[in-house]
């Protein structure tokens, strides 16, 4: 995709060394560990990783939706150069929905069952704009048209349980884009949907993002989604970024052993059935008892002694590709 554009597009959101901790009993576990990436205008960035790799917590941290016992413990989240972290709850309410819209994973339970669809979208508009509720309801119908809900005027008066999963996800997308945010975060937006619906929702997200010129942060474990939509990919493992690369580089020249293993796990349509799938041996570390050094080292086929002692820093290797791996960085001095 547009590799040239990546270099020039303006950075809208810059996340640096973001840390989020959760208190479990007397222990504090670091779920998001020094995560850095940036979102560029009109571009799609995907965060990929296994369940529990800290993808969703990263997304929620951007909006400061982390509830106790969780806590954002470090780093900066710069939106247009201004750090969002010192903002209080009231100030963050002005950012959420207005500047950064979010689409959630489970469309079935992400809508208030007791509010009509139109009213629900209107609530988001009313939270951010000084308009009458009649005007908000009217714009809600427009938004439903825009996200492809047929017979929008009538359906705006329905309740969520009258909608199918795919239609509910369209409604959630309408809520996320209601105030023309510059950033849309989509947390596994298609995981709970039928395969046939997934493609339509992804297409819709992509088209809206292009039309709005917004940045899309796509959180997913589906490499197919990444290949189809993303410009840049952030690979997370055990709460850390292990590789960050332009999408072409990531698929054709992955540097981190974990990225390679992840790609080997993916099922392609033209795969020969005789080639067995290659699952990654072992399991992600227990965050309460993180191993020293590289978190992937215990499962890594190419780990060297140093990997078990020291954290590999995330360093640029090629233009548009950073990796956190001693071996990939050519450091073979065990």
């Amino acid at each position: 995709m547009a590799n040239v554009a990546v270099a020039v597009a303006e950075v809208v959101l810059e996340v640096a060394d973001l840390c989020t901790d959760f208190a479990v009993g007397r222990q504090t576990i670091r779920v998001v560990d020094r995560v850095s990436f940036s979102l560029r205008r009109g571009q799609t960035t995907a965060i990929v990783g296994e369940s529990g790799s800290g993808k969703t917590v990263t997304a929620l941290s951007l909006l400061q939706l982390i509830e106790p016992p969780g806590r954002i413990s470090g780093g900066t989240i710069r939106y247009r150069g201004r750090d969002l972290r010192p903002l209080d709850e009231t100030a963050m309410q002005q950012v959420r929905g207005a500047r950064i819209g979010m689409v959630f994973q489970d469309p079935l339970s992400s809508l208030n069952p007791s509010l009509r669809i139109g009213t629900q979208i209107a609530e988001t508009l009313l939270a951010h704009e000084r308009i009458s509720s009649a005007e908000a309801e009217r714009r809600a119908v427009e938004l439903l048209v825009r996200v492809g809900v047929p017979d929008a005027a009538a359906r705006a008066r329905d309740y969520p349980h009258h909608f199918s999963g795919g239609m509910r996800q369209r409604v959630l997308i309408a809520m996320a884009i209601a105030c023309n945010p510059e950033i849309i975060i989509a947390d596994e937006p298609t995981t709970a949907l039928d395969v046939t619906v997934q493609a339509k929702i992804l297409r819709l997200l992509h088209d809206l993002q292009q039309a709005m010129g917004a940045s899309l942060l796509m959180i997913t474990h589906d490499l197919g989604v990444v290949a189809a939509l993303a410009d840049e990919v952030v690979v997370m493992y055990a709460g850390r970024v292990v590789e960050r690369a332009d999408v072409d580089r990531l698929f054709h020249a992955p540097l981190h052993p974990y990225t390679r293993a992840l790609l080997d796990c993916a099922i392609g349509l033209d795969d020969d059935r005789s080639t067995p799938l290659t699952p990654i041996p072992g399991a992600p570390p227990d965050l309460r008892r993180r191993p020293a050094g590289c978190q992937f080292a215990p499962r890594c086929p190419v780990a060297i002694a140093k990997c078990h002692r020291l954290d590999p820093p995330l360093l640029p290797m090629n233009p548009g590709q950073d990796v956190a791996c001693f071996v990939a960085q050519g450091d073979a001095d065990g």
Partner: protein
Amino acid sequence: MVTTSLSEPAAEPNAEAIAAELGTVDAPVIATRRWRLAAFTRDRAALVASIFLLIVCAAAVLAPWISPYDPNVASGQLRFAPPLTPGHILGTDEQGRDMLSRLLWGGRISLLVGLVPVALASAAGLVLGLVAGYAGGIIDQLIMRTLDVLFAFPMVLLAIAIAGVLTPGISTEIIAIAVVLIPYVGRLARTATLGVVAMPFIEAARAAGASRTALLARYITPNVLPPLLVYATTLIGLMIVVGSGLSFLGLGVQPPTADWGSMVSEGREVLATAPFVTLLPGLVIVVVSLAFNFIGDGLRDALDPRSARR
């Protein structure tokens, strides 16, 4: 839930069990107004109960106009006239007062004692439960432990204690019952709030920039209210029984004012010779309480998404 025994009027309603039964914890109520009504009217028992209660309430309200005699004054020489006596269709009591008139006037008190304390306690319990469930932490602990203290007393004993401290009368009775009910409603409201707050749509609303006020008013309360409404409805029947119990013990309205409970109480001495004096008001209490329970059941089914038929 309904019991005819007046000295032991209430099986203690367990708010948490009811919350679980109502399904508030895992799935908040999902319904449209249109089929809420449709589902409710499809439930024959609830429909019949509602019509019956409407008639009973209308009769009580209209008592000053439709009651054939003064409820507190003996009408002629007839004492213990059996039901169907000409002029006294439900008979007369030990003082020769017309039973029908006393039942009509008594309904005004008994229904009031059923409805008002439940309404008061529901409002107070809803606020306390919402605050406790939403705020959490120390505020939650403070509210819930206070309610637990009230909980520790048997329901009727506490009502008797409160009513006993204040001067007997209908307002005392209402206050006593309302105070006793608050922990039950409060606990249910808190449980329901916790269930709703954990739902993804709350996080989604926050992500869309909803303020705390908007969350409480538009997202949490509307989803806590339906199970509370169902619970309150079943409580009304129960509280008529409790109120009758207080009157029976002389802690409610004072003679000669009639309420259904005091009528049962007055009739007990002549139970062997004129059983209808006790049985008639007793029967009314049972049937009215049952009717409220049927309505509660009907509401629960109508508001439960899992019973949704379209």
